[in-house]
């Protein structure tokens, strides 16, 4: 790219003091930003931060309440048709027709975009080779994998040779390998001079963008190159290792230090971020008293975001402290043998076997469609295995009585709450449903309201709550009956990193009280909190070990210290390589 050329060009997108309200909800508040041609710009932020609204405004599908948006020089209010002509928009909820084949989808979009029939053949050929979808032109779009769907969506969005490409969370539901391919494709487009916007809730994706607009609660928290923001944290990130104490307990104490802004478990070690303006003295002393080693490490974008938000809220889980220590169980809390589930000819879970020990956090990881949800649902007793067996507390949950089910807690972050009931009514329902008597219901509800600061929201509907509060409420509902085993289905997807930290503080506290946790997640970083991780791919467990061991197995000459994500990609590629032509 020629830097001189760029300064001459007007910006691809110019946002000036744009606000958007939906009823009383403020989606965006006085946003101003610019997007350059030939740049990959990330719109980053937790769910509900305003990403989709901003993208729809840019695509001229919504009009701003105040302010002005210029896309390729056209005003989004006065010239929406021109904007539609020069932009390619790939919505989050997949704009493809699942009952049409890949080629039929391309044909449809070519007609919608009025591509001249003469140019169509050449364009299709280029798009198909670009997305490597050539061999799959006859397959129905609904039958493509998550990654291939996104590639097809991208091909359709590229149909009109747009100058500006808007991608709304293209990384959701895509395995890390396909995600890398998507990145490569998008980078190829920016070098051709296209302006590409990639919205995401994953902060690790932000680091790959040339420029980032970080949104939080409808406002811009940061606008610029991600590396500049991350650089502010240089010298403030450390790894603690080699200690003998329980790492969860150590993290709790570390987070309680006034000079520590953020901390997380990373396999057997801890990752700690210092608060701005604090020196290492306190942390050094802490390290020495725990006989640990400390070494500086490179900061990440997420550290910078948490620092921007003001850091975490200490390491103690008041919730877990109220729990009684769970006695040693006579059996393993969760186990499955040769668990298999088949839908017609499609095998969703293929002979999965593992045993979870008491007081362990066990992670089920894998791309969408790998079978982790199916496995999870069979373990919960929601799905009948085709063969094999799943046992929780030594019983099959499908035939379990009420008493046995009272020992289980279940939280699926997206679906746990009753939207038609108020916060208080939700709490009352779950307390009652798990058989707590009236007096105990009252104490436990009061306790949860106090611990999770829910009192301002008691009469509100769950849907009107901020995502973080909703997630706390879901956790409260799942824990009022003090279960011995907790099932968590993607518990933190979309929430901001501070809420995620708080969530894991509670989970770490619960585990120290002897609660057993089974969690599914696609956050690689969350895998680090697990004692053991089962990595699933194409219905099979392809690796099952501690996070550190998984990372060690992925060490290569080029990547001496792989991250969880790199380890994941390495393991998937190793598992797939025998089937793939080289």
């Amino acid at each position, binding site marked *: 790219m020629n830097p001189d050329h760029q300064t001459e060009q007007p910006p691809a997108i110019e946002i000036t003091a744009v606000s958007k309200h939906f009823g009383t909800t403020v989606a965006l508040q006085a946003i101003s930003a610019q997007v350059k041609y030939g740049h990959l710009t990330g719109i980053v932020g937790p769910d509900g931060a305003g990403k989709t609204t901003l993208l729809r405004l840019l695509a001229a599908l919504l009009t701003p309440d105040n302010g002005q948006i210029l896309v390729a020089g056209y005003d989004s209010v006065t010239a929406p048709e021109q904007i539609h002509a020069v932009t390619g928009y790939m919505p989050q909820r997949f704009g493809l027709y699942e009952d049409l084949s890949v080629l039929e989808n391309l044909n449809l979009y070519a007609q919608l975009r009025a591509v001249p029939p003469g140019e169509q053949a050449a364009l299709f050929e280029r798009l198909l080779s670009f997305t490597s979808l050539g061999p799959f032109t006859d397959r129905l779009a609904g039958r493509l994998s998550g990654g291939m769907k996104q590639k097809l969506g991208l091909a359709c969005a590229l149909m009109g040779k747009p100058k500006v490409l808007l991608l709304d969370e293209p990384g959701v539901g895509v395995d890390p390998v396909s995600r890398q391919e998507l990145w490569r494709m998008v980078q190829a487009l920016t070098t051709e001079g296209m302006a590409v916007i990639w919205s995401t809730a994953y902060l690790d994706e932000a680091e790959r963008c040339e420029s980032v607009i970080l949104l939080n609660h409808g406002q811009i928290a940061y606008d610029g190159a991600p590396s500049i923001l991350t650089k502010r944290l240089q010298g403030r990130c450390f790894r603690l290792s080699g200690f003998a104490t329980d790492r969860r307990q150590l993290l709790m104490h570390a987070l309680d230090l006034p000079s520590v802004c953020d901390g997380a478990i990373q396999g057997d070690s801890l990752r700690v971020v210092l608060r701005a303006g604090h020196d290492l003295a306190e942390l050094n002393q802490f390290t020495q008293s725990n006989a640990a080693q400390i070494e500086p490490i490179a900061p990440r974008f997420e550290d910078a975001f948490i620092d921007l938000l003001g850091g975490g809220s200490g390491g103690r889980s008041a919730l877990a402290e109220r729990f009684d220590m769970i006695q040693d169980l006579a059996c393993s809390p969760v186990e499955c043998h040769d668990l298999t589930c088949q839908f017609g000819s499609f095998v969703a879970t293929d002979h999965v076997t593992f045993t979870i020990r008491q007081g362990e956090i066990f992670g089920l990881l894998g791309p969408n469609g790998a079978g982790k949800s199916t496995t999870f649902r069979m373990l919960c007793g929601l799905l009948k295995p085709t063969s094999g067996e799943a046992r929780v507390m030594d019983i099959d949950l*499908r035939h379990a*009585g009420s*008493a046995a*089910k009272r020992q289980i807690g279940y939280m699926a972050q997206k679906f746990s709450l009753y939207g038609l*009931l108020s916060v208080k009514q939700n709490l009352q329902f779950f307390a009652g*449903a798990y*058989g707590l008597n009236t007096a105990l219901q009252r104490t436990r509800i009061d306790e949860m309201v106090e611990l999770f600061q829910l009192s301002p929201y008691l009469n509100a509907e769950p849907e009107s709550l901020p995502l973080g509060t909703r997630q706390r409420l879901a956790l409260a509902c799942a824990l009022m009956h003090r279960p011995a085993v907790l099932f968590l289905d993607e518990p933190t997807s979309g929430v901001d990193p501070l809420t995620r930290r708080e969530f894991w503080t509670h989970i770490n506290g619960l585990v120290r009280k002897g609660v057993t946790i089974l969690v599914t997640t696609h956050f690689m970083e969350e895998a680090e909190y697990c004692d053991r991780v089962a990595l699933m791919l194409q219905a099979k467990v392809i690796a099952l070990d501690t996070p550190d061991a998984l990372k060690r197995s992925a060490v290569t000459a080029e990547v001496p210290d792989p991250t969880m994500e790199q380890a994941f990609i390495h393991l998937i590629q190793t598992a797939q390589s025998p089937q793939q032509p080289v």
Partner: protein
Amino acid sequence: MTWFSPAMRALIIKELLSILRDPKSRILLIVPPLAQLVVFSFAATLELTRADIAVYNQDNGAWSRLCVERVAHAGFVHQMYPVYSEKAIRQLIATRQVMAAIVIPNTASSDEAAGRSVQLQIILDGRRANSNQILLGYLTEILASLNAEPVNASPTISDLAVTRHWFNPNLIYQWFVVPGVGGILVTFITLLLTALSIARERELGTFDQLLVSPCTPGEMIVAKMVPALLIGMVLGILMTGAAMFLFRVPFVGSYAGLLFSMLLYILSVNGIGLMLSALCNTQQQAILGTFTLVVPSVLMSGFATPVENMPAFLQWVDQANPLKYYLIILQGSFLKDLPAAVVWANDWPLLVIAVITLTTATVFVRGRLQ
């Protein structure tokens, strides 16, 4: 399953709240059905009040003029069109300007004077078969009375029979229609409420949460039944009240008998709704399913067409249609004091349907667990 265990109570409260917490949905459950009762009761009319009739009077004698006069002044006639050719009749009927035409031959008056029977021709629009049957009935009655009238003190014709309609002597159609429409509306609301209940939870994802909880399928079904039962009863009583006080349909049967039958009927509809709901994955499927069930059950209930006229096979299928039994009880309770034995004869099939469908619904929910 324990009654009024904390779980049972929590479930029932949850179900009631999810239907009744929102004031708008509370109003939506009661007001539109009552409004529909009023509208449908006037719309589903079997009376003929505004008929246009063409007359081709070839006779012009005294009797024929009297005849035209009589028809023109009858309450159901809106306007008369005198015409002077067959062609004109054809045109008026073809363009639907008139429902029927009367052709009086030129011998009519003289035949009448001579005491012979008069032969008139009535031409009807076959496209409107139903209302024409009614119109023909009215016209025949008027014309017969004319012929019977002793214009010339002719003794040849006498009235042979006098028709008496028991239970509804003046054949006020609303006496017949209103209770039935009320029953159908109650069916629809309760069926929809229950059909949506499980499907809604499944669509929104909360059903998994419920299945993982210690609540048993039996408890879930009972809890889901309660609000629909409550709302159905309230609505049923309101409908009965509206029929009695708004439409002044006489109620001569037993209140206790009707209430008991209403309870059984709503239970059986709840059972069907929950069974349907347990099979549906989305609310859209549940709504389509409700329509699929309601339309035939109304058509086969005996509300519009007698059950006895249906082919034997369909009558046999109709044994599983709770509305058929309920309409007998409902209409019987209003217009005739249906004996307790007959009420019971129609009650026990309702009970059987309720037990079977509710058990099946529970089995379906449990089946979903496995």
